């Protein structure tokens, strides 16, 4: 059988998640592979959605301070990574969005955390994590080359470069990039948006930053890192922030 790119896309995480793999045969033949990758995305969606009342995030936010919140181990993974990123960025990256000065949570074990206070929003990292999980699922299914794109947060794996178009907010200008074995995330922040809007940038103090009017693109080895680092670059205004170097990332501000 000849190998070709097979594509599927489904709505998850408030966006469209597209997966392309180099596979033998047609869509039906590759169905079990896609099913495992989309199941990984669905698991992240169920655990980390801010909207769903039964998600780990929603249960954390409604729990009282001091309560132990039992979570999907993947949520604990993300909270653990978020904690590292918060420390490394001196608080610029903050999933509590400034609602808990001394940390919103403490990790107890692989499937539970203690709530210290505040509220969490994993919107700045969960999509990237879902992409990484889908990539792991595809590799575990024997896929050698592929790309997962969750509404613009994407990661390519395997040999060979992929063409990526980075769309910028202010104009219709686009930039084409070649990417091999790595992730790219782009965030746009426009002035005048309300703090509740997706585009608003929340500072560690918890207030929306309105003055920024830029597009930030970060490339990193993993998509969760690329996703999270866009916030660090946006808040620091520094496309050469030392964290990027530490984590193998590159950033562009427009």
């Amino acid at each position: 059988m000849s190998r070709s790119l097979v594509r599927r896309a489904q709505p998850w995480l408030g966006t469209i998640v597209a997966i392309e793999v180099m596979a033998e045969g047609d869509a039906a033949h590759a169905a079990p592979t896609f099913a495992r990758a989309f199941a990984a995305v669905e698991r992240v969606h169920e655990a980390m959605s801010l909207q769903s009342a039964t998600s780990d995030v929603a249960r954390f936010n409604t729990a009282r301070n001091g309560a132990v919140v039992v979570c999907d181990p993947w949520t604990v993974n993300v909270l653990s990574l978020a904690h590292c990123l918060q420390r490394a960025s001196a608080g610029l990256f903050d999933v509590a969005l400034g609602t808990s000065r001394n940390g919103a949570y403490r990790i107890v074990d692989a499937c539970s955390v203690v709530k210290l206070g505040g509220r969490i929003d994993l919107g700045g990292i969960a999509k990237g994590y879902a992409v990484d999980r889908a990539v792991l699922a595809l590799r575990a299914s024997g896929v050698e080359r592929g790309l997962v794109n969750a509404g613009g947060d994407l990661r390519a794996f395997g040999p060979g470069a992929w063409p990526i178009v980075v769309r910028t907010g202010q104009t219709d200008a686009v930039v084409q990039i070649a990417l091999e074995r790595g992730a790219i995330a782009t965030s746009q922040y426009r002035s005048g948006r309300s703090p509740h809007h997706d585009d608003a940038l929340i500072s560690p103090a918890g207030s929306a930053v309105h003055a920024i009017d830029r597009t930030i693109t970060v490339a990193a080895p993993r998509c969760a890192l690329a996703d999270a680092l866009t916030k660090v670059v946006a808040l620091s205004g520094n496309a050469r922030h030392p964290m990027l170097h530490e984590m193998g990332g590159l950033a562009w501000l427009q």
Partner: protein
Amino acid sequence: MRIEVLPIVLGALPASVWAVDYVSASEAEALMFPQADEFATVNLRLDNAQLQEIGKRAGLPARSAQWGVRVARRASSPLGYVVVDNVIGKFELITYAVAVGTDGAIRQIEILSYRESHGGEVRLPAWRKQFVGKTSASPMHVGDDIANISGATLSCTHVTDGVRRIVAVLQVAHESGALP
């Protein structure tokens, strides 16, 4: 990780449309009801009272009185329905299929195709300079693959609204006996 900004020849991309086709409607229904041995089309004609009821249940206008529903069957007994629909956003047109079981529960949603129109200006940004010395020495070749887009997050709100409408259409049609 290897990365490089590609020097695009100005004018090479005129005002254009990105179009990605994922699966065809017939591939989608076979993926969503793999156990089905037959698909048949039922054309629904909804009356005004039904349209109002759909609007009430979905919380948004029924939009159309005519809907084509594919009924999936196995050994003549119905398994569920597949409806293909289009939603139009600010810049994009999305064709999707939703599979609903005879119990009214959503089984799966598949995007069939995605089209996005955009302006044609392509420029080499200042940040290309930032790449100097950071990228691989050998030029990277991307071939003719369709480009993936990284940019402002695409919202699937229109799709989720559309799915809600279709679920209401199927419920009302099922209750009236128009669907098995």
